[in-house]
């Protein structure tokens, strides 16, 4: 069974890289939806069944922590694992992400192997594949 993923980052380059990395994981990845900010992400969550979210933190309109908070407050989305991929390495932001229920945290710059390793743990626990 394939899993649909939502990638949220204001950088189109990072969205392309993560899309490519997801396809290289060997996992059964279906559609990879892309959003440039948290608001766009919420619209896509309303329109599609999403199994996993990868999100940046610093974005315009709605940042990744606000998106994570909105998802965890909504019964229909609070079971979807959310992995943060961000330049933010400070304890404040990391602690906030953990407190809000992030399933994983990867700092930019990242290697494909770091993403794959973190995803493997998350998907093993949460996804129907």
């Amino acid at each position: 069974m394939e899993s649909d993923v939502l990638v949220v980052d204001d950088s189109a380059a990072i969205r392309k890289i993560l899309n490519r990395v997801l396809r290289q994981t060997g996992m059964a990845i279906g559609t990879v939806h892309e959003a440039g900010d948290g608001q766009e992400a919420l619209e896509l969550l309303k329109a599609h069944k999403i199994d996993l979210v990868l999100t940046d933190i610093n974005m315009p309109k709605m940042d990744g922590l606000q998106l994570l908070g909105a998802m965890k407050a909504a019964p229909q989305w609070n079971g979807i694992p959310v992995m943060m991929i961000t330049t933010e390495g400070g304890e404040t932001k990391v602690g906030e992400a953990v407190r809000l229920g992030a399933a994983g945290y990867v700092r930019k710059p990242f290697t494909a192997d770091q993403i794959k390793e973190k995803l493997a743990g998350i998907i093993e626990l949460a996804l129907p594949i």
Partner: protein
Amino acid sequence: MNLKETLVNSISEATSKVFSTMLGLEVQVAESALEKGIPEATDGLVSFIGLAGTWAGTGSLTCSKELGCRICSQMLMTETASIDEDVLDCVAEITNMVVGSVKTDLEAIVGPLGLSIPTVVFGRNFTTKSAGSTDWIVVRFRCEAEMMSVKMCLAPSEKISHVIPHSLGQTCAVDG
């Protein structure tokens, strides 16, 4: 270690790590300096990110059109020969990673800082001007046959300076 030394070390390490991890490119530090006043006019790309908190300032990355295209080609695994949205986006994101890493190092000294969304300018014969009097710490790097620089100015918030891209020629700006 004073703030200037800390910044030079942090910029050097962050730039090297970001370029090797995300692009597979090696960079070598050519020199570091303190820049006062308005720098000479330049051509190419400059990407800015603001920092705000109890201290505030700006980080920037400046490179040639050729290095901008090389960054994009390496990052997206495509051949890029001219400046387009992908090049601007890649340079913005690389700047975001470098300045973001430096910001994390700085937070241990000056407390929590926020990062703005990057803005990239591409043009010819332009310079940049700081509205305040804060000096810029500049680290120049060699990357293959090209030179680039990463700059940062930082001061307690009451001395905050805003960077104004000051165009002498034609420019193209996008939010990264």
